[in-house]
């Protein structure tokens, strides 16, 4: 592990060194709480509906990946000078770590930051803030955490009107609403949802490789329960009906059930339950449905549209024969797609002139940090202006 930034980056200022050191200390303290019997993880599980065992594992995995080099690298990639620009971030509510990443980015950017949290992800960011303020008392002058839903309209208006930049994570509805509410002088930086889909051609894999790939896929599905943009909703399988049947059987009888013991699923919230109920009925009209203990696999042999899953560890298995069919399916959704494959270099079915999906490796959802769970456009520049 190198302790210094790459040579082509500018030299590190002493202030940056201190900031990174303090941040890492705060994250270490947070990790100790997560690994201990501290009630933090249970509190986070209650508000996020993620299972505490899976949550603890994924949080430790996340914290493990935050390294000094990466933080220096983030600082170096932001071209604009650090200045106390007033920034409002409306953090997403799907995963606890995203708000904390937003907090870290604001801190590195040196902005006057109001971080508005979703009710489903407050605890981790608040715990990190506490650790940071204990080490940098002056931080409380330029960092404010609020829960958006708990604010009155007047309070929301006040926060919006004083913000020079508004970073918002959300659906088109959310972004539109904020765009209408934000003052004309504010720069809006929207981040939309993303859809991860996996791709596999069993003919290119040995039986052992196929098994490893499917185990990795099951882990990616289970980690964060499909609420992150890299947690796959669909497996596109190139090949015959027989190959599709083979993969279906392996997923239903081996890999999806096995992951339940390693990364148990949390309770379903009411919208998720209803969406799963409706989705299973719809999927029956379109193909086959195989439900096991806390997972579900839907199978379509001739799909026209790539439907996102309703969460709850619902994975879609969609078969296709020719790469052009996959290209059509990827273009059937308006949500930006991340493609996850066993060896992406072999994958080139799309029109080279058209929008290309981002490609990741199957079974490696955990890497790299700061862009693995969202749309990959989450950058320090956005906070610095």
């Amino acid at each position, binding site marked *: 592990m190198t302790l210094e930034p790459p040579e082509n980056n500018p030299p590190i200022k002493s202030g940056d060194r201190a900031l990174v050191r303090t941040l890492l200390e705060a994250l270490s303290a947070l990790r100790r709480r997560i690994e201990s019997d501290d009630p933090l993880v249970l509190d986070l599980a209650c508000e996020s509906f993620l299972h505490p065992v899976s949550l603890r594992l994924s949080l430790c995995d996340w914290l493990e990946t935050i390294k000094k080099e990466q933080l220096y690298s983030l600082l170096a990639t932001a071209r604009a000078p650090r200045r106390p620009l007033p920034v409002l971030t409306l953090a997403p509510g799907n995963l606890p770590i995203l708000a904390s990443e937003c907090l870290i980015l604001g801190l590195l950017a040196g902005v006057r930051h109001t971080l508005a949290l979703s009710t489903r992800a407050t605890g981790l960011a608040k715990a990190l803030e506490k650790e940071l303020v204990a080490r940098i008392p002056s931080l409380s002058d330029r960092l404010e955490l609020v829960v958006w839903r708990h*604010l009155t309209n007047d309070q929301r208006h006040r926060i919006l009107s004083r913000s020079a930049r508004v970073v918002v994570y*959300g659906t088109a509805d959310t972004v539109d609403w904020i765009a209408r509410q934000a003052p004309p002088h504010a720069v809006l930086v929207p981040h939309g949802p993303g859809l991860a889909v996996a791709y596999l051609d069993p003919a290119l894999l040995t039986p052992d490789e196929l098994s490893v790939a499917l185990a990795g896929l099951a882990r990616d599905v289970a980690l964060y329960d499909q609420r992150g943009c890299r947690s796959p909703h669909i497996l596109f399988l190139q090949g015959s009906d027989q190959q599709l049947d083979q993969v279906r059987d392996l997923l239903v009888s081996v890999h999806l059930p096995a992951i339940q013991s390693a990364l148990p699923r949390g309770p379903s919230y009411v919208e998720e339950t209803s969406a799963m109920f409706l989705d299973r009925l719809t999927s029956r009209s379109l193909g086959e449905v195989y439900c096991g203990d806390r997972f579900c696999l839907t199978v379509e042999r001739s799909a026209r549209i790539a439907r996102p899953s309703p969460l709850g560890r619902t994975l879609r298995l969609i078969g296709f024969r020719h790469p052009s069919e996959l290209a059509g399916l990827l273009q059937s959704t308006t949500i930006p797609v991340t493609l996850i494959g066993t060896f992406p270099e072999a994958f080139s079915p799309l029109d080279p002139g058209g929008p290309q999906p981002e490609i990741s490796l199957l079974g490696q959802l955990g890497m790299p940090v700061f862009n693995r769970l969202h749309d990959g456009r989450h950058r320090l520049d956005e906070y610095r202006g």
Partner: protein
Amino acid sequence: MERELDNLLDELCQEIRESGSAPVWPDDRFFSWADRISRLQAHLDPLRREPVPADLVSLEQLPCVTTDAFRYARIATFPASKAVAARFLTSGTTALHRGAHLLYRTDIYDCAALAAFKLLVLSRRQPARLISLVPPHQAAPESSLSYMVDRFARICFPRSTDCVIDHDGLRVDWLASALTKAEKEGVPALVFSTTLAAQAMVDTGMTAQLPPGSLLMTTGGAKGHRGSVNPDEVDRILQERLGGPQTGSEYGMTELLSQAYRFGGEPYQLPPWCRVLAFDPTSGRPSPHGKPGLLRFIDLANIQSAIAIQTADLGNTASDQSFFLVGRMAGAQARGCSLTYEELVKQTDDSRAP
């Protein structure tokens, strides 16, 4: 089989037309129809993978199709080679994801919609003039609502209809003229409007004194315009501004050829060839009457698609086949980077600073 489908359509049209004189269908009559139609549909639609149980004993057992399925597959009991007489599209953000309800015969829609309107609305109020705030059929040929209101106008109000909306939306001058005409004539009027058009009418600030016995009937939520329109509030304001007409609501959707109606705060009433069930999404079993569940309609008029339609609407049913609408089930939390719109715009009851 196709001939059987035609025969069944003829027979059902006849029975529906006769419902005016016999508005209550006994359970066994309805059940017998549902059994016949669903078995035929299972034969005719290759997508209907779930078989109808040989010993069908309750409506809950009928294989159902969700409203979403219309977006992803051709839900039709007639071959794709057969000419389509009507292609009604559901609302949607992109044409790609809009569901289609295909009909090769529209007579069943004509007779079901008209019979329900007469049975559930005109039997209680007798307006002599229609003011329509629904886009005309020529302007929206793929809207089932426009088609239906067009039929009402032609058949029930042949020389007394004012459509005050066109391609560009509400025509304020046309609306003013229609309201003045209704006031002068002194005969009860029916104002039939989508919720969004009713909101547009509120925005005009226009007032009128509609004659006693008039009715304001609104329909549809405000899809794509969430947060901006409150249907109850719109009804209240218009009732105040139009001289106190009775308010009412129509409940319908592209995927259903029959409609429910209600007056004021009453429950929705269905025509006798349509029934409603509520399902608990957690257990997947029917919810008891009075407990909210996801509404599933058994609409016999849907012979050409699927008679059992599962919706995402939450409601309470009653033993007399009426129902209250509780709301629409929001989809599961969107994946990745999503602060849901609902969470964004709503405030907790105890709004407070953190």
